[in-house]
């Protein structure tokens, strides 16, 4: 009898635990999920959907403008360099930011098709990928 009672308590506790964790994860998911897109994919999506997105691409050779604590640059698709998005970023620019560097930007699409980034990360120039060291 005691054994059955314990089993029931564990089952109820597990269901409560899973419900709580599920609710926590779901509520965080609805508010904190962002689009993860390459530049070409982002160009295919309606701009009003890109209020919160993470874009992957590389820094184009042309059009890098550094201004005080920030930079404006063209983000180009890794596979199709014709596809570009203008990115404006205000904040500390990472050490490894340079033309050709693979970068990740997070933010939202602003006016005139300009992506306003609140986060700019360059891919870690890891020793596991020698291409990153070509200068």
């Amino acid at each position, binding site marked *: 009898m005691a*054994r059955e009672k*314990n*089993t029931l*308590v*564990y089952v109820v*506790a*597990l269901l409560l*635990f*899973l419900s709580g*964790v599920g609710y*926590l*994860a779901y*509520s*965080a*998911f609805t*508010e*904190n*999920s*962002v*689009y*993860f*897109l390459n530049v070409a*994919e982002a160009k*295919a*999506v309606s701009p009003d*959907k890109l209020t919160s997105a*993470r874009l*992957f691409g590389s820094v184009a050779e042309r059009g890098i403008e550094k201004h*005080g*604590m920030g930079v404006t640059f063209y983000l180009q698709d890794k596979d199709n360099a014709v596809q570009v998005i203008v990115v404006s970023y205000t*904040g*500390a*620019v*990472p*050490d*490894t930011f*340079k033309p050709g560097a*693979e970068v*990740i930007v*997070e933010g939202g699409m602003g006016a005139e098709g300009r992506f306003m980034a609140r986060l700019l*990360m*360059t*891919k*870690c*120039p*890891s*020793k*596991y*990928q*020698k*291409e*990153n*060291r070509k*200068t």
Partner: protein
Amino acid sequence: MYVFANAMQLLALFCALGCGALSLRALWLGNGGAATVTLLEKAHWLVTGALLLASSLLLNALYRHDFSLQYVVSYTDMILPVFYRLTAFWAGQPGSLLFWALVVGASGSLFACAPSYKTLQPATRLWYWMFFYAIMAFFTLLLSAWSNPFVEQSPVPPDGNGLNPLLQNPGMIFHPPLLFLGYGGFSVPACMALAQALAGGRGDEQPWFRLTRPFILFAWGFLTAGIVLGAWWAYMELGWGGYWAWDPVENASLVPWLISTACVHTLIVEERRNKLHRVNVCMMTLTTISAFFATYIVRSGIIESVHGFGESAVGVPLLVFIAVALLVACVTAAAAPRRGKPLAALESREGLLLLLAWILSALAVIILTATLWPVFSKFWTEAPQGMDAAFYNRVCLPLGAGLMVLMAACPWFSWDGGLRRKKTFLALSGGLVCMAGALWAFGYRQPTALLAAAAAVSTLLGVLLLLKESGFRRPAALGAHTGMALMALGIAFSGPYAQEQDMMLARGESGAVGQYTATLQEITGGRETGYEYLTSRLQISRNGENIGVVAPQRRMYDKFGAMQFSEVDTIPGLGDEIYASLLGLDSDMRVMLKVSVKPLVNWLWIGGTLLCLAPLISLFVSLRGPKRDRAPAYSAEHRDMGEARDKPASGGEGHVTRKTKRKRKK
């Protein structure tokens, strides 16, 4: 010369394949003959020896600047110091896989020499070697077919590409091998868990978790050290002021740690109460599988990450291996005999340990799912979605705070239910509430951080009381819980209460960050071997009182063209730490700086160090201390002994079963 190295890898491959097939044949025929077992017990020396020779040849090539090997060209150059040249052994994917294979091979050979191995039944030995050789065959197949460190090139270049300056840091040098020691170390316990579950594990055989205890403790310690060291490197070397960004590659290493930590806690229930056998077989196997899956995430290029590991050919073979291993784990756990007893009440120590394992497992599942969400969402949309850092903070930090509360409460519950030290528990609970109130009064009102910090202080007080109660009897638990509590304090304060300011300063100008003022004293430039540098010297003061100087640098390395690298400087402290990085210099000779105040951040590193050392201290103490008699886990005698051992050291309300009472009467 490298023909010999390739031959060694092939020898290890064929030997592992042959021995795996031999053990499978013996198991199929039900013929656990002594000759077969003897052969299997000797062949591992050949596998490990061949891998050791191959590793020596790679180290020799790195030491001698042998640029005829692609691997040496890719990760070293003529001016790289010998220390970094040798550690480039695990710098690239092929070398790190060779290192991992060597760790697994050496662990297997070490276990075969241990006295505990000699107690195994022939059937268990056969199953164990079958799984061990299967893993070794997979590694050597990867090395021979898809990721070979001994690929030669012609013509031989005069110099190599060199090692990225960001990675020329002791933290980054030891971070990968520690992770691989952790990943590799769990292989022997996992093979033993599966072997004993399939062989029955009856008779005088000790249970797998006791036989492989040093491997579990070492692997967990190394894995923890690898993760902590990676976080410290990110904090000190990258200059962005943080230590954890919830990047897929970081998450990948955290998942095996979470599963292994859950397993360590469910193993305590099995060790003390002879319960959860099948759960533990599953958990230990999942730990090893998750290590392979972590490597799959890192190496396959399936998910975009800030870590530029790039895509490689090992992704598909790794995925196939993981799928097969998962199938084997599920079938084995389902087929294993049920030996345990029903669990005690939820409000018991075993109930709370199980709850703790649920939370750790839930964290692993959530982090893994969220990390892979961009891949999953591609199945139903062309615009895949993923999670930003806020998602992980919002879900994982409350669960982490819950873990801290459980950690504070668990030692004061008895194994069979209810409190074993009611007054102490109430006093510690009161202390937790008072601490939370005090923090609230001082303005630290972020709920998760407040709960985690208060629970951490309560845990630390509890550790002191446990030391008084039973001395240094359980060094692993006491050390690890102290370390974890200190880490929780560090995270609870240095995360939400850090103050950060980007500033542009000319010489003599000041900027404020929190209660501190940074004044630029001078900007100097110069040259050192291999790089030019720019240094800004900042005087830091608090309420008009000078507290020190920071001198962050920017470096331009000769080998890395226009790229600039930041060298952070800090004024360390056990309270606030001042952290400064130099971001650049404009045409008006004004420097761009990031200055941060990180409260209690060093407790994260102190706690992390203690957490890594706790398992090693425990092993040292158990080797030096008197050996406890250990009865076989599967005998009735052990079950009684387990119950009797639940009794607190200082007497009290420990549970005594009727069987034990009968024995005592006799």
